[in-house]
Structure formats: structure tokens, C-alpha cells
């Protein structure tokens, strides 16, 4: 393939151009949404600014703090490091979509029961992260929870109560499974 052929393909109609935008369709918290987006728009901006789902937070934009975690096709990712166009066709779950309405998931309820929230800014990312953990490891040890939490910074220092909350969910799951 020559440089010319590559250029021809780049300029061809299969290309998605940055301006004025490209169409994407995502399923966000169970709702299908279709929008025109710019190629460089990160997923976190699409969620917050385009869809006005402001539960997902921005803390650093360098992939460390974890405030922007969402589930992308069921897997936790940092939505500051994913382009919206990359999520075309995917299912996104944000903190607002973890539970229906005013219900709480067992994990959310456990956070509440265990004083695992202080300022609440890291909480959405923590919930998303721990939801992902419990999906594939329903009975994580304290050490496994702490290691999994490396992608979430909590400057209030809630870590210990979050660990306790996750363990309490695991224990309930185990005792329910054992019956």
C-alpha cells in the first residue's frame, strides 16, 4: 500500500472528520442516545457536558484520580482517557445508572451504612470501581479491595470505610449463597 493509497483512504468517505462532528450512538444508563460529537471530545465531557450527567466527576485529566470512572460495556474505565467516538455502539453506565430512581444497590447502601462517604466527590468513581470488582470477584479480601482501589484517590481518607462497605456486601453475598 502506497502513501498515496493511504492518503486516498484517509480522505475517503469512511473517514470520520473532526469538524463539524461525527455521529455516535451509545446506550447510556439504558437509554439510547445519538449525537454529533467532535473527535477529540473525551467521553467524560460527553457524559457531563453533552448529556448533563454530572455525577461523573473530573479531578485530574491525567488518568490518576479515578473521579471519572464509568462502566464501559460493563468494565470500569477512566472516561477522561476514552474518546467519545471510541464508545460508539457501547453501553455506558454512570453513577446515576447504578440503581433505579431512589433505590440503592447493595453497594450504595453499604457505603451509606458504613460511613464510606465524606465530601462525596470521589464517591461516584469509587462506586463504579467497586461495582466492577464485585462483578468478577464477589468475595474480595481486604488486600484485593485496597489494590483494586489504586485507581481511585480519596483525599478525605475514606478508604478504610469503603473497604468495610465492600466487605459487608461480600459477606452478605456469601451468606446468601451459602443458604
Amino acid at each position: 500500500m502506497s502513501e498515496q493509497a493511504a492518503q486516498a483512504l484517509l480522505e475517503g468517505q469512511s473517514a470520520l472528520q473532526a469538524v463539524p462532528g461525527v455521529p455516535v450512538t451509545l446506550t447510556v444508563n439504558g437509554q439510547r442516545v445519538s449525537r454529533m460529537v467532535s473527535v477529540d471530545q473525551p467521553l467524560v465531557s460527553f457524559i457531563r457536558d453533552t448529556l448533563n450527567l454530572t455525577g461523573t466527576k473530573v479531578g485530574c485529566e491525567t488518568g490518576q484520580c479515578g473521579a471519572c470512572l464509568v462502566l464501559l460495556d460493563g468494565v470500569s474505565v477512566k472516561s477522561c482517557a476514552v474518546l467519545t467516538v471510541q464508545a460508539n455502539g457501547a453501553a455506558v453506565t454512570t453513577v446515576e445508572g447504578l440503581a433505579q430512581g431512589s433505590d440503592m444497590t447493595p453497594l450504595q447502601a453499604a457505603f451509606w451504612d458504613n460511613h464510606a462517604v465524606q465530601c462525596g466527590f470521589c464517591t461516584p468513581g469509587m462506586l463504579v470501581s467497586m461495582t466492577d470488582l464485585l462483578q468478577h470477584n464477589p468475595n474480595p479480601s481486604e488486600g484485593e479491595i485496597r489494590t483494586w482501589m489504586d485507581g481511585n484517590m480519596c483525599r478525605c481518607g475514606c478508604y478504610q470505610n469503603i473497604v468495610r462497605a465492600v466487605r459487608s456486601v461480600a459477606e452478605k453475598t456469601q451468606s446468601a449463597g451459602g443458604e
Partner: protein
Amino acid sequence: MTSLSYYSPDSLTEAITLLGSADARPLAGGYSLLIEPQRSKLGGALVDLRRIGDLVGVTQGQGGEVTIGAMTPLAAIAAASAVQQSYAALAEAAASVGDAQVRNRATLGGNLAQSDAGNDLPAAILALGGLLHVQGAREERIVAASDFFTGPGQTALAAGELITAVTLPAPTGRSGSAYEKMKHPATLYAICGVAASVSLDANGAVEACSVAVTGAAEYPTRLKSVESALTGKTPTGDAIAAAAQGAGEGLSFRSDLFASADYRAHLTRVLTQRALTRALAQA
């Protein structure tokens, strides 16, 4: 604002074609390209490799060798039983990368091709004698890991080429491997990471030994003097310690706020000894 285009080909052929353009670059996990300040400076064309199904998976061949697709997420590599059983150094290196979300999305190919000297997988792939499948517009070629990392921020990849997979040769006889790392407290990259792979002969002497460092030196590299010092020897604690003392000879080391070059050189020796000790314990 520079203009940015995005392509998401579903075949390798199309991806290679797209990457034939001078301003096109491949996009894998995204954790180095799409974070700030890099993201706002992006221009040209991004060729996302995510939809190319052929590039994902861990498969064991007839001869016992294992081939891992370049777009396989690190979490899947760390969890793959074939990797855990025969290539502990790789499983450990993959499990030590960044955090859970990075491991969910970052890929084998990205970790090898990206130029950051603190990436973990290069050490494991070097020590395990990985063979990189490299696809270009004209040909597919196989590059040995030891020929792949050529300098600071440099690899053997030519413009327009992609890593498509890595094959790890089948382990022979009594063998073992391990990865030891000191994490950078901020980035969680390796301040120093050392992978060791060893096999023993029928008499318990070291038949083959391969050791590599990442993060500490200017680029990922084998520690040949350690390898030659130990090969053929009975791997006593003293022999391991003596061999590890030569780790890093002749290399120049990186330096930052958390770890000076001297300290990285020291860590290279310490972690070499530890990685060898654990690798030998498995053999």
C-alpha cells in the same frame, strides 16, 4: 486547535493501510495518548485498533508456545491461566501495571510500543524471549524482543508498522520466571522492574537464564552480564547474589524526584537478585 480524525477499522489490512499515512498513529488502550496534556495537542489521524477482533486473545500452540494478541488487555493477560502457569513473570508484570482501570483497557501492544521507559511488560517479554509479530504494509516480520527496544523512546517498529501479537516460546523442563518491581509512588510505573526467566538442566545447574530491566535504565534492556554469570552454575544463594552484582554494568540510568540514577542502579541489582531467586524457586 489541530484537526483530528478518527478511524476504527475492523480489519488489520485496513488498519495497516490507514497507518500508511504520515500523520496517522495507532490507538490502543489510550492511557498515554488521551490524557492531558497530550490529548489537547493531538492532531492527524488516530487509528483505533480496538475493533480488530483478530488482535485479542491468548492461545496455546501445538508446541506449547503461547501467542497473545497485541490488543489483549493487561487484565486478561494477568488472569490467563496459560500465562500464569508458564510465564509467571508476564502475569506478574501485567498485574503490576498502573491500576485496575488501566489494566482493563491498556494492551500488550501498547505497553510494548509506547516509549515510556517505566512500562512493565517490556522486561517480562525480554526475559521470556518473546517474539513480536510485526505487520507492515508490505510484509509481516518477526522481531525478537531483544532486538525490539533500540534506544530511549525508540523501537524497531518502522513507520506504519504494528505489533499484532507476541509469541512466547514454550518453557522447557524445569523452568520458572518472576517479575520484581518498585513502583513510582505517583505514577505507579516502574522506578525499576526486573524480570528473570531461568531453566535448569538435569543436574540442577542453570541451563538458560534471561534477565531484563525496565524503568531504571534509559530503555528496557537485557542484563547480559547477569545471564552469563549464572549460566552453567549451580544456583546457590551466593551464586545468585554474585551474578546480581553485575546487573546494570555499563548501563546509564534515569533520574527523577523520587529516584536518582545511583539508586536505580542499586535497585537493579537488588531486584535482579530477588527475581532470580523467585524464578529459581519455581524451577
